[in-house]
């Protein structure tokens, strides 16, 4: 049996409520708008705020400090299986009626932990790999193509770093745009065409990049391990901006 939910956190909580009430547990939980194999039996879960709140309150009493936040981080994942992974982890937590977030020998815990770590790893990477270009109006604009919806996770870092410098961070893959002007920040989920900004420092940085490595030790594979190819189209030093 497959649960169809609306993709929100309350959707997952409602699904959990439903499962315990009917005492039947789904093999998978998916977002309702993806295409499904017709042979699977599906149950559509209507998100219900009061049911979700009950589950939330229950989890709050079980999970240790900080573990609740991880659910929201996990939801930022670009992995299609994320709802199932989160569901299974929460189910196990409720079954055990205690926080088992570090029981890594348990597959459900392990998978959930991995899901969260992947999101956090990508967020960390983009603190480094985001590239701003200065527009004519003096705003610094960055577009990028993350696997996970990490915009709001990396935003605080850039706000405290740049303070009064106006900037925009634009996630093209998930259509998220965050703008920081005059000390105020706003994030919207909306499809907006990416800007193409020419900035003289891009070529100067490329010069730097091409000079600073030790030619005798060239090792492209190692470079790509740390900085996967799919991230390159965002980086002026890799000179692959033409694709945008």
């Amino acid at each position, binding site marked *: 049996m497959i649960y169809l939910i609306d993709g929100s956190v309350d959707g997952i909580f409602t699904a959990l409520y439903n499962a315990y009430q009917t005492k039947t547990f789904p093999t998978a939980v998916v977002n309702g708008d993806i295409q499904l194999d017709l042979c699977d039996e599906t149950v559509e879960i209507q998100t219900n705020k009061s049911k979700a709140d009950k589950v939330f309150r229950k989890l709050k009493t079980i999970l240790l400090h900080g573990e609740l936040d991880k659910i929201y981080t996990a939801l930022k994942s670009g992995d299609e299986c994320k709802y199932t992974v989160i569901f299974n982890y929460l189910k196990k937590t409720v079954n055990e009626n205690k926080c088992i977030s*570090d*029981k890594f020998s348990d597959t459900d815990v392990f998978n959930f932990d991995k899901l969260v770590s992947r999101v956090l790893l990508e967020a960390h990477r983009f603190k480094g*790999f985001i590239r701003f270009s200065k527009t004519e109006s003096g705003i*610094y604009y960055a577009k990028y193509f993350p696997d996970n919806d990490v915009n709001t996770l990396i935003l605080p870092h850039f706000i405290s*770093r740049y303070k009064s410098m106006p900037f925009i961070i634009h996630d093209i893959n998930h259509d998220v745009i965050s703008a920081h002007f005059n000390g105020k920040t706003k994030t919207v989920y909306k499809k907006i065409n990416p800007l193409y900004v020419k900035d003289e420092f891009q070529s100067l940085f490329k010069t730097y990049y091409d*000079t600073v490595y030790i030619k005798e030790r060239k*090792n492209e594979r190692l470079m790509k391990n740390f900085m996967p190819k799919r991230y390159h189209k965002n980086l002026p030093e890799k000179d692959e901006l033409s694709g945008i």
Partner: protein
Amino acid sequence: MISAEKLKILVESAKFDVSCSSSGSSRKNKGGIGNASMGGICHSFTQDGRCISLLKILMTNNCVYDCAYCLSRRSNDFPRAIATPDEICELTMEFYKRNYIEGLFLSSAVYKNPDYTMELLLETVIKLRKLYGFHGYIHLKGIPGADQKLIMRAGEFVDRMSFNLELPTEKSLRLLAPQKTKKSILTPISFLHGEKDADRSKKSRFLPAGQTTQMIVGASPERDGQILNLTQALYKKYALKRVYYSSFVPTTNSALLPTVPAGLLREHRLYQADWLIRFYGFSVGELISENENLSKDYDPKCAWALKHPELFPVDVNTAPLEMLIRIPGIGVKSAYKIISARRYGRLSITDFERMKIALKRAIHFITFSGKFFGSIKENMIERALKSLDNSKNYEQLSLFSNSEINTSVLTGEL
């Protein structure tokens, strides 16, 4: 703005400085641009697989000294350039605002004399902080022999300083870097350490990220044991944050130097041993004696474990953390995972597989509540471990690099 041509010249000579780390400081943004991130951030990776965190550049490569191994040495016919403090500040700011870098790593050849050079560096970092309002990371290379007052003043503005030891012994220095002495390098290190120690109470605004140093390996005859003992002494005596090793690459054709590169394997092994000393509770004496080199065949932890059959196998369900991290193939992260997971019950080999803990090396050194799955014969273990070590490919690194073992340099999973 600095020209691309000048940038090239000044970076070309700076690139052999290994340190690039931007960690260890949590400087706050006080109304300007920038802050420092405690764990450090990599902004890019170069084509040799190194992290770009800081803008690594020389003030000038115009040198009055004549170190045999260095491209910038006086007797070398080489394009020269000098940047102005404003050129450095501007470039740092513009790169920083675009998120290309985490900060500046400023170094210099000895221009005119040590004091003159140090003044130039000091002027630049003060300008960058005060006039340009930069609160990002600054790593400043100190000039040996410069006035102590200048050096100490620089410590108030930058996050990290380094005086490079260059070579492991006075004898090699005399031969290859005749204008430098051990004393001219160690004295400022010791003063800075003293000042930072005294400053501890004041929230450590003085050199928040401490000091590092660097040695060239393979340009002179010292053995790994000697180098590691020196390293350990530096950590103990001056609380250095890192000792970097730079495997010798012949760029000059000095008759005093070997004609072949020292190779990355040696550097790699030294880093592995260094890591064991800093994070795994090993002392140098346990790993190696003064006149030895580290094993080419196994990483230093494996080599140590093979020498101590009496300590193994270790039971993963009862061993304390200090022992778990001594098991070949088990890193600190895996050890913590084991400790966490076994609170819920005894761990079996399938639990390890589920936790994705690598067993290839560890299997010969551990039991699961008494059950052993590895090889018993010593020479079989050796053979198995040898086949796992990818370091033979090191001489042809560009073709056969192994990501796992290279990553271990950064993450320390041994």
